[in-house]
């Protein structure tokens, strides 16, 4: 039984479990305290001071003050409002007035607080001029860091260091020179940054945003000779609606297809088709390793580009364990410029493939190695985040809510339920097991065995299970958030040192918490509640699919009959597989 505490907030009594912060206690009785540096995903850092309240007469920050028995809390009186206004004015005194042209316009937490508090003039103009040049860092072409817009709340550092365990960003220098940057003031592209974009998902201002490729896509669409093809990732269909007023998790696939067609794309494909191909290849690769002993175990999934970057930087000795299979959008890119181009008789140089991803690292992935040009051209030309495509749809004046649902184009638009679950943690494993089961036993998995596995769900960072496959035990591990990887790697290392069998045969890792549904390119404001809702949306998409296993997809069967031959064929290897290289943490 949890120990309960009673305190009074604005003359109202409230009972909360011991350890609850005053801020959270207030939320329980619908008392809204403004916050700026606080984020429910992160440890409170008490950096900004906006959430100040009076506790037994003293002014304290509610985000990091635990509730105590008998506390008397006042959350609003003229003194408190004045203190909060002063905090805001001080923050604004060092913040450029560029809201109209800022990428975060209308989505900035600082802007909306300034609006709420009615700040009408810059009260401390020029008292603290910026002491040194702080240029923008767009070196990754995934994430843009503009230190001038940084308010030093520390959220990006917290998520980069403690949730992701990447330690690319830190708070450097002191006093008026304090700023956020990688060690050595290196460019992000020369730092350990894995481009996961979690910093952009947690930054309250325009200091960290996605690299905006939307203008490039508009000009591609304008060029008459271009044959523009688009594909959407699994996790995009359950998050995009949020930008148009839908509840998180609403599946809006049909409306997204319709909107993209209205924007001028000639063919609407689905990354889910690529996910089904990934399963055919990766599933077969696992069977090769597990049943036939060709290759090392455990095998580790490789469809998350931020995870691939993380592994190449932090665990290069794990390279032989990585599946060589490309990620789904890269597969759709390569097949569009070969298989599809042949089918419709269009010169592949005229085809432009744009992928809509929940992810900033995908922008990096499309250029990461020579294998990303397997078709003879750049397989995916531009990768846009969910946030960018939402803005583009609004720019185009498309009435998203009232769109008639449409279907994707054939053949790279057909997908199974196994593909759609790629969008959340455990989903790739789930999808792979459905097909691996069939490949090993020759029988389909029982319906009641689908999706009840303990590897699904966003609550636990590391999930394990054992599956019986034709009398052989398959030990499985699923981790999400690169901060959880170290534990898994240690377990592997320990077993190796003791000369024991590896603790797992098959490991799935997604760099972001929750998997792609919580990706760094998704609509802002994500919390665990929203991650769960998005996951539920994808699970219902799976449940109502006609086919629920990748190998059952008729278009996939046709692809292998007509074009690839069989999984892991020479053609598959050329078009659908890749390789990995160690990358130093810092380039100087």
């Amino acid at each position, binding site marked *: 039984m949890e120990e309960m505490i009673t305190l009074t907030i604005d003359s109202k009594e409230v009972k909360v479990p011991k350890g609850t912060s005053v801020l959270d206690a207030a939320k329980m009785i619908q008392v809204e305290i403004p916050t700026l540096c606080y984020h429910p995903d992160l440890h409170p850092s008490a950096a900004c001071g906006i959430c100040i309240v009076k506790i037994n007469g003293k002014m304290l920050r509610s985000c990091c003050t635990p509730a105590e028995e008998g506390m008397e809390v006042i959350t609003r009186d003229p003194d408190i409002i004045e203190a909060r206004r002063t905090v805001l004015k001080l923050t604004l005194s060092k913040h450029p007035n560029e809201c109209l042209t800022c990428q975060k316009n209308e989505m900035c937490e600082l802007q909306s607080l300034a609006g709420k508090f009615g700040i009408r003039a810059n009260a401390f103009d020029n008292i603290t001029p910026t002491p040194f040049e702080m240029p923008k860092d767009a070196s990754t072409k995934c994430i843009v860091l503009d230190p001038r817009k940084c308010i030093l709340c520390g959220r990006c550092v917290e998520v980069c260091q403690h949730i992701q365990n990447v*330690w690319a960003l830190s708070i*450097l*220098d*002191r006093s008026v020179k304090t700023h956020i940057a990688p*060690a*050595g003031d290196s460019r992000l592209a020369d730092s*350990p940054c894995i481009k996961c974009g979690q910093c952009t998902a947690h930054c309250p201002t325009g200091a960290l945003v996605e690299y905006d490729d939307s203008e490039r896509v508009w000009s591609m669409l304008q060029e008459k000779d271009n044959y523009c093809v688009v594909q959407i990732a699994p996790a995009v269909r359950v998050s995009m609606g949020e930008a148009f007023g839908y509840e998180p998790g609403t599946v809006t696939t049909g409306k997204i297809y319709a909107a993209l067609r209205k924007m001028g794309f000639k063919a609407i494909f689905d990354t889910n088709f690529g996910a089904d191909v990934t399963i055919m290849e990766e599933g077969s690769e696992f069977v090769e390793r597990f049943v036939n002993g060709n290759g090392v175990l455990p095998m580790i999934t490789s469809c998350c580009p931020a995870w691939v970057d993380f592994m190449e930087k932090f665990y290069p000795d794990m390279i032989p364990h990585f599946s060589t299979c490309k990620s789904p959008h890269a597969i759709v890119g390569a097949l569009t410029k070969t298989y599809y181009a042949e089918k419709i008789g269009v010169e592949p140089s005229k085809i432009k493939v744009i992928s809509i991803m929940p992810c900033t690292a995908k922008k990096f992935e499309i250029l990461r190695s020579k294998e990303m040009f397997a078709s003879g051209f750049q397989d995916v030309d531009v990768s846009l985040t969910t946030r960018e495509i939402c803005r583009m749809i609004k720019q185009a004046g498309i009435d998203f809510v009232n769109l008639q649902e449409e279907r994707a184009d054939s053949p790279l638009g057909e997908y199974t339920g196994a593909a759609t679950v790629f969008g959340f943690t455990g989903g790739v494993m789930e999808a792979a097991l459905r097909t691996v089961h069939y490949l090993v036993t020759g029988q389909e998995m029982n319906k009641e065995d689908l999706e009840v596995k303990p590897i699904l769900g966003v609550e636990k960072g590391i999930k394990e299970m054992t599956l019986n496959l034709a009398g052989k035990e398959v030990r499985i591990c699923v981790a999400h958030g690169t901060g959880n990887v170290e534990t898994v790697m240690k377990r592997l290392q320990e077993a190796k040192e003791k000369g024991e069998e590896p603790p797992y045969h098959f490991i799935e890792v997604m760099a972001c918490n929750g998997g792609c549904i919580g990706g760094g390119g998704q609509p802002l404001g994500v919390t665990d509640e929203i991650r769960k809702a998005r996951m539920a949306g994808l699970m219902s998409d799976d449940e109502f699919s006609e086919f629920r296993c990748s190998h059952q997809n008729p278009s996939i069967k046709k692809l292998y009959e007509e074009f690839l031959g069989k999984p892991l064929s020479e053609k598959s290897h050329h078009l659908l597989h890749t390789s990995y290289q160690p990358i130093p*943490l*810092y380039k100087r």
Partner: protein
Amino acid sequence: MAENESQEKIKEDTQKLLTKWKNKRGALIMALHDIQGLFGYVPWEAMEVTAKEMGVPMARIYAVLTFYNYFKLKAPGKVIISVCDGTACHIKGAQGLLDAFYNCLGLKDGQTTEDGLFHLQVVRCLGCCGLAPVIVVNGKTYGKNTPADVQKIIAEWREKMAETQGV
């Protein structure tokens, strides 16, 4: 080649020095002090070795180094020029001397020339106000300077360093 060799030497020396600190919790700042004591500054290669040996991310090491004013991140230069800007020297024209150093060497307070030869620092009173404005170069004191003297001082030290160290 020479640069690679000196980088390797820095790595080796740092590794040796860290044997004393690497299994101690909370010893990062002490270790960094030792490194600066050895090299006169904290070289990037030494930070990388420290990160590895002590299991501390570079991001934290660099944050510590830039937080504390004491730590230097660049080699301080072979010829250290201290220009006094204490009250007396300030009144007697220290700013003119600093301008002259900037014009001749392109140096501002705390900077080192790219060849690593000259380092300029502004100091407060050196206790010989009768000689204001004062410049001290590697322990040698120059008094009652004018901007024209700055050029002479630079030429003198260039010559001296060329003779003794071949630079």
